[in-house]
């Protein structure tokens, strides 16, 4: 019973940063500017938040600094990729490479292996929801998470509403699907692409803060560990739909949680669970793609 509880709690815990990356990435995906820099942006959020808190002791300042700097990366990405028409894959890759390099450099200069926060602890960020906390089973799972974890799950609904119920959502989809149509009606297509990328940067910053400061109160190099790429895979599997893509993100949370919790019993073999999400992802992507092209009779077909 306790094990199940702990698996479910950890599922929520591990899903949150991936969900944030997913809801950040879907808008860029729908606007046809694939943001592969989610990983780098998330690491930036993780690093800057812990660094600023370590130097100033102010959590608020840390959060603001993390968000602002990640948005700057978003602007760099948009400027090079949208205004200058650069290759978004190359630019995204560049950001993914430079952010961890900067972090490592700063750690080196500070002569630290990692940054551990002393004045705030993990417990300070946990929110215990009165009332819900005392409900058996659910209370233990739903209550006791840091604030951004809750934001992530609320974010799924917010993203779905933004995508399907507002002008902005329709415009983003139009820009991605038929840019000519948007131009012929005088929509500023670049503006919507910029906003889509910046939403992504904002969500990645939150994911990073969640990952380092809120959950661990520390920063270690490369701590994002490919979560940004997992989010991209989730976006593809869910075809950019907010709820479906988030469900794939949660699937990863489940797998990760199993790996962590069962390691106590299975020993080193529990590491095998870490491969589950990747195997599922490869299988899902292959099946989705196969179903899509199964009946295509045109040879050498390509989607443009």
């Amino acid at each position, binding site marked *: 019973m306790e094990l199940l509880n702990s698996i479910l709690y950890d599922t929520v815990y591990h899903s949150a940063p991936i969900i944030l990356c997913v809801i950040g990435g879907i808008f860029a995906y729908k606007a046809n500017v694939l943001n592969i820099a989610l990983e780098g942006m998330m690491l930036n959020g993780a690093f800057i938040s812990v660094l600023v808190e370590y130097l100033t002791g102010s959590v608020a300042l840390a959060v603001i600094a993390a968000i602002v700097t990640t948005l700057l990366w978003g602007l760099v990405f948009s400027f090079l990729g949208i205004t200058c028409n650069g290759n978004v894959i190359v630019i995204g890759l560049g950001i993914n490479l430079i952010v961890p390099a900067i972090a490592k450099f700063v750690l080196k200069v500070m002569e630290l292996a990692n940054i551990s926060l002393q004045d705030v602890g993990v417990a300070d960020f946990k929110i215990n929801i009165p009332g819900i906390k005392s409900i058996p089973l659910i209370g233990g799972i739903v209550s006791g998470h840091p604030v951004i974890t809750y934001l992530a799950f609320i974010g799924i609904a917010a993203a779905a*509403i933004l995508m399907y*119920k*507002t*002008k*902005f959502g*329709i*415009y983003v*989809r*139009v820009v991605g*699907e*038929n840019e*000519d*149509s*948007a*131009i*012929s*009606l*005088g*929509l500023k297509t670049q503006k919507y692409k910029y906003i889509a990328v910046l939403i992504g940067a904002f969500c990645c910053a939150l994911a990073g803060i969640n990952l380092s400061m809120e959950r661990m109160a520390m920063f270690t190099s490369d701590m994002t560990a490919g979560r940004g790429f997992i989010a991209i895979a989730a976006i593809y599997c869910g075809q950019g739909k907010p709820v479906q893509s988030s469900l794939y993100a949660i699937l990863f949370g489940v797998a990760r949680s199993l790996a962590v919790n069962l390691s106590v019993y299975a020993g080193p073999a529990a590491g095998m669970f870490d491969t589950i999400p990747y195997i599922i992802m490869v299988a899902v992507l292959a099946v989705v793609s196969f179903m899509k092209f199964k*009946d*295509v*009779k*045109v*040879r*050498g*077909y390509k989607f443009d």
Partner: protein
Amino acid sequence: MNSMIQTVDLTKKFNDFVANDHINLDVKEQEIKCIVGENGAGKSTMMNMLYGLLQPTSGKILIRGKEVTLNSPVDAIANGIGMVHQHFKLVPSLTVYENILLGAEITQKKGGMKTPFIDQKEEIKRVEKLIQENHLELNATDKIEDISVGGRQRVEILKMLYRNVDILILDEPTAVLTPQEVDELIATLKNLKEQGKTIIVITHKLREVMELADSITVIKQGKVVGNVLKKDTSERELAQMMVGRDVVLTVNNERKQQIESEIMYKAENLTTVNDYGKEVVSDMSFEVHKGEILGIAGVEGNGQSELVKLMTGLMESTKGTVFFDGKDITNWWPEKLRKAGIGIIPEDRYAQGLCREMTVSDNCIAGYHGEKDVCKHGLFNKKTINAKRDKYIKEFDIRLGDVNGNIGNLSGGNAQKVIIARELSANPKLLIACQPTRGVDIGSIEFIHKQILKFRDAGNTVILISSELSEIMSLSDRVIVMYKGKISGEVSPKEVSMAAMGLLMAGIGKEEQDHEKER
């Protein structure tokens, strides 16, 4: 009547190329103006300037006598100009009403305050009202991807009407429509004119011009060459103005020898489906004899593209067999087809026939690049390739600025000649020619037609697919007509009337036509 829209010395240059040269146009209030000209005459450039998509190099645009600057489509719409493009600018995954209101969404109001949420009920109501007012056949909540081409065009028109435009520009509106849909469109446009709209239609189909227009402006090579009222002119006179000489395209198509009885090419129950699993070529069976030109006619989008892809190895069939020269060649790849003796002139010369970013000589061997004379031990022999190129340039009168340059620099006609030179020089027994003269100048058209006839007269076989009815009728020995992926009739081009062809293209077969006559 007052002038609605005028242009004064409107000029547009792309680098050195003058697309529009001092165009003076005068469209009166509440008239239907047709602008005619050949492909590449500069009609679309001019309309794109009126709609703010392009900015003129020099000259003025006046609306109701007042000069305006149109920097974007938004400016144009604000000035009452709307445009329906040749290639629709609709979003397939959105519904009819969402497309019509795109960029002008209605948001919900709560207690006088604006909210960011879209009021879908109100949007549907408004669009349904608009559809009713204009007597159009449309369902506001259908998705664009589910409705017909004619329906999509009506959505485009409504999109502009919703924005209260006074001037409606339509760019080649009938190119993708069946004859019946064309009639409906003409009725719709005349109805709009009655309601006070001014309409400009760009086209090169003269028959429709005569049905639709009040006045006509003819453009040739970027210049206005004639302004006439419909009542003072004829199809013949317009054609003469468009081309600049008296006769339009009459190649001498006298057969020198009989068609042989030997069957060269035979398709049996050929069938395939498109990406959505819909049958686009259904049970097509036909034969082509040695020394014959078989024409395949039809309104665009009735499966001709897919049939050509099937015949040239770019698409797989789901059913049926194809024989060529006694061999089963079903679903062979293009390389093997070329080796077997089939020359291919593809539908889209830049997508399937040539590689724009490669040199003329590279393109001269494309598809035949494995032949021993140009490629030994996996290495190209540049000398023979260049010799080939020079031979083609001479024999096929290909005009180009730089022999070592990329094929993308050539004009449409000359690029097409490179394909024809390449395919015919490989001495095929069968030529599959798809839209061989699309977007090609008159001189090249004549040359290409002569080459096709010369090839036939040498005892070879040709399958000609074209949406230009005149081309099919003047070249073919026998014509089959396609409608919705099926053969709706087979005729002899010398005996059939244009009216009967029109009915076949609308899917009304011979028996039904006879039946109609009896009644």
